[in-house]
Structure formats: structure tokens, C-alpha cells
């Protein structure tokens, strides 16, 4: 069942993005930035974690989960070490996305050549 909800919720996130493209005529960079910020805010309101439990990868794969996990890491560290943890724990949970993108970016540049 979680596969079905992952499909539907993930798809709906993309529809929101498509509406931002077509109706509000935003660039992809603007759209992604807004989605990341709203992911962070949704976590702040405590709404994102239930969504992950409900939809699994439907909530963790869209870029909104990036904002969510930034707040998540910051909060976890803040509970352990107080206010400074907000800064030190920021990338605790998110590191995989950014490091994977950078590592595979360099590897990709080594292997592939630009076309056209």
C-alpha cells in the first residue's frame, strides 16, 4: 500500500511544481527554492514527519524533504547541545544528498563528455 501512496503523494508534489512553472511562470530554481523552504516550514509545524510515515519515499524523494531533514538535524542536535546545535547539526541528516550530488558530479565529469 505504501507504494501506492508514495506514487500519489510524490506525484502531487510534482503537480504543485508544475503549477508553479505554468501558472506563476517561475523558473525551476525559484520553484525548487520555494519548495525547500516550505519543506523546512512544514517540519517546523510538525507536519512533515507524519507525511513520511504515511507516504514513505513519496515524501522523502521530492526536494521538500531536503528542507525537512535540515531542520530535523538542527533540532536533534539542539536538543542535545542547546542553541549552538542549531548550527552544528544542520547537515547531520542531509549530508547524503549534497555529498552524493557533488561526488557523482565530479565522477560524471570525469567519465562523460558534454554532447552537442
Amino acid at each position: 500500500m505504501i507504494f501506492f501512496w508514495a506514487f500519489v503523494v510524490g506525484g502531487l508534489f510534482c503537480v504543485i511544481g508544475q503549477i508553479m512553472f505554468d501558472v506563476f511562470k517561475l523558473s525551476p530554481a525559484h520553484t525548487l527554492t520555494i519548495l525547500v523552504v516550505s519543506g523546512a516550514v512544514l517540519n517546523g509545524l510538525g507536519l512533515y514527519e507524519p507525511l513520511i510515515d504515511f507516504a514513505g519515499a513519496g515524501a522523502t524523494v521530492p526536494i521538500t524533504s531536503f528542507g525537512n531533514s535540515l531542520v530535523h538535524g538542527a533540532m536533534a542536535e539542539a536538543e542535545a547541545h542547546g542553541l549552538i546545535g542549531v548550527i552544528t547539526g544542520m547537515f547531520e541528516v542531509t549530508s547524503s544528498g549534497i555529498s552524493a550530488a557533488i561526488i557523482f558530479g565530479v565522477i560524471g565529469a570525469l567519465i562523460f563528455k558534454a554532447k552537442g
Partner: protein
Amino acid sequence: MADKKKKNLPPEAQQYQAFQQKRETKRPLFKNCLKAFFVGGFICFIGQLITTFYIYFFNFTEQTAGNPTTATLIFLTMLATGFGIYDRIGQFAGAGTTVPVTGFGNAVIASAIEHRTEGFIMGVGSSMLKLAGPVIVYGVFSAFIVALIKTFLTKWSGF
């Protein structure tokens, strides 16, 4: 274009703008949304397959399996980007390939490959995060604000 900017233009330019706005091709919103829904949903479906795989074979939990899933998806994106498949799907799916984390990966990897000719330090290294930069910058900044507010609320009001 903003109205403020419009006022400074000569009348011919204003006329032209009204003219071209009328003739602009209407984007087929419903069809685009449908495409984005199915392609985006499919990427999340693959993500769920990978998540389930990590939960069963590597003892991750539902909450922590998101990380290895992200890394795996970005690896697959590298292959798809390198062979030029991702762009083709992207043209069809619009936001369906931009919104999932694979779109973030594609933005980084594609610009890394594209700027390779300018050298590895000034090309790949400095241009790689050009498109993904705003996402990281404002993601971190907003997360900082949200976490700060939340910490204050939980610490000093017993909320």
C-alpha cells in the same frame, strides 16, 4: 513583466508587449500536470522500491532509509544524465523530473559535465553548484530560522 517597468518603455514597446502577450501560446496546464504527476510519481515509486530494499537488507528504519535512497537515486541520475536520457525525459515531464531529488542531482551533474572544458577547478569545481546553490543557501537559511524559533519555543515556554 512588472507594471512599474512597463511605464518606462516607449509606447511602441508597450503595444508590442500587449500584442505578444495575446499571441503567447497557452501552456496546456492540465496535460502538463498529468505528465508531471505520472513521471514524478514513478520516480517516487522507484524511490520506495529502493527504500524497501534498504529496510529489509541493511536494517534501516522508515525514517533513516531516506538517506541511502537519496544517494542511490542521485547515482542513477548520474548515469541517466551522462547518457543524455534525463534531458529527454525532462522535456516530456516538466516538473515531474525537477521536483524529485533526482532533479537536484541532475542540475549539479549536468553543469559539472558541461563546464568540464573550462578545466576541473574553474570549470567543474566552481560552476557545479551554480543551479543548485540557491536551493542549498535558502534551504539552510530557512532551516536555521525554523529550528531557532522551535528551539526557543520548546526551551522557554514548555510548548
